[in-house]
């Protein structure tokens, strides 16, 4: 049985159209996955729906055999599924340490929270150095690191990360990718990653889902997907569409 099963999910925002039209994916425990696809394919929407930020209109989501579809975000989190969205959702006026403490909000046990904060400070020396600094004063890369460390506070089984390298210098984003690699290789956490830089994403993950128009078109090992001619078509197809649309506009 897969750790996470997404079954024929349909979802969208407010009264708007379906962004996810009919998507099904299986995620096995302990592996790392990358979701790729053109803009508007529904990548972020898929993660938001799994995280409980968006209620599926149809279909089911099973985590560890249990349905989590339609649960509140805090209830989904309590099962061990955490989500790191792309906009670096820090608490700007709290210190780095307080941000991490907030990550343990569900734990309720102050001693345990302190213990885990110290563990994470050991794992991320950069955060330890900035422990009492306000989170808003840190660089983009440090904030991304902080959000990921904060998500680790509950020792999640599945970590979903949306475009961690967005807006970061290549050197910094490489550090972030190293951390993501260590999540699955050292900590045994299942990783579900969205990455706009397809090459980088496939380099980090073992397996890839290719999304287009709200559904999973195909999947395969990262090596296979990288060489798959359909990938080029998908992205080039979008470029061609865009060129056509802008041509129409004129």
């Amino acid at each position, binding site marked *: 049985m897969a750790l996470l099963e997404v079954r024929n999910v349909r979802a969208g925002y*407010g009264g708007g159209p379906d962004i996810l039209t009919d998507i099904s994916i299986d995620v096995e425990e302990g592996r790392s996955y990358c979701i790729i696809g053109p803009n508007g394919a529904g990548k972020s929407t898929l993660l938001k729906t799994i*995280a409980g*930020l968006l209620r599926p209109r149809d279909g089911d989501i099973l985590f560890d055999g249990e349905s989590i579809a339609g649960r*509140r*975000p*805090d209830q989904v*989190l*309590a099962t061990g599924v*955490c*989500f*790191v*969205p792309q*906009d670096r*959702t*820090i*608490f*700007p*006026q*709290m210190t780095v340490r307080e941000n991490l*403490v*907030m*990550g343990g*909000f*569900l734990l*309720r046990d102050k001693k345990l929270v302190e213990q885990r904060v110290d563990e994470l400070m050991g794992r991320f020396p950069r955060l330890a150095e900035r422990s009492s600094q306000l989170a808003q004063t840190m660089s983009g890369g440090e904030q991304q690191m902080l*959000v990921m460390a*904060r*998500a680790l*506070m*509950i020792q999640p089984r599945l970590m979903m990360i949306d475009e961690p390298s967005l807006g970061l210098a290549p050197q910094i984003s490489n550090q972030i990718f190293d951390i993501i690699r260590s999540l699955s290789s050292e900590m045994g956490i299942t990783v579900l990653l969205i990455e706009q830089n397809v090459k980088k994403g496939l380099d980090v993950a073992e397996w890839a889902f290719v999304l287009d128009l709200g559904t999973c078109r195909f999947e395969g090992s990262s090596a296979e997907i990288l060489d798959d001619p359909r990938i080029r078509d998908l992205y080039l197809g979008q470029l061609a569409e865009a060129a056509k649309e802008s041509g129409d506009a004129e």
Partner: protein
Amino acid sequence: MTQVQVLILGLLLGGVYALMASGLTLLFGVMRVVNLAHAAFIVLAAFLSFFLWEGAGIDPLVSLVVTVPVFFLLGMAIYRTVFPRIEGSPRFTEMTVLMTFGFAFILEGLMSKYFTGIFRQTKPPYAQDAIILGDLYVPTGQLYAAITSAVFLVALWAFLKYTRTGYGVRATMQNRDAAQLVGVDVRRVSTVAFGMGMALAGAAGALISFVFPFYPSRHWQWIAILLSLVVLGGMGSLKGAVVGALGLAVISSFVSTHIGAVWAPITFFGALFLMLMVKPEGLFGKKARA
């Protein structure tokens, strides 16, 4: 009158304004609700204290034990019944302005009908007394009101700083999405925060019942002042509301003494205009994200 005397009167007034404004800024900070009915609820609480005083001889400071819990429950009930309808709307904050504007009218209408438009004031003995220190005098009513306000504000601060729910409230104020992602049930936190915002209105009402004469439509004057000092301090910032309240009350107190009492209300709006021109996000406000 000496400058120190003017300063004292300004600070005492500011203390009460700070309490009145704290609930307003809390609601905006946590839920992005602009509660135009906040002052109307304060007047309602003042009436509650007034009737307890007239009917049962209960001191307005003692009536706090009634107004605060009653308004806490009232706030949670209002939040749960009314706000889910507009939650998730892309124009949520704008809609709360219209909705609470309606609440203010309804409350004012009901109070005018049942309590009449007569000036009311509770008159415990200390409200007419003063402490004389050399050539300074400190009106005891305002002193007690300011001290009580300070107690409530410190309690609020301690709650936000040291309790688990308080952490949840602060997290939601700083970043609602992030709060949700670390497992804060923002709906529950919002309900509690709304109750607390209203409890602060309940406390403020009991205090103003002996500091200012009041009548149902007086709330318009107060909400205008409260909004100006909340915006000045930075919408959603408690520190800003307190600093704004104390600062503006002191300035208006000086204006009132040296230029003339009719100019005092202008201080608040003048300062507001200046702040909006120079630093639109307010003293301690967050810059709006593009």
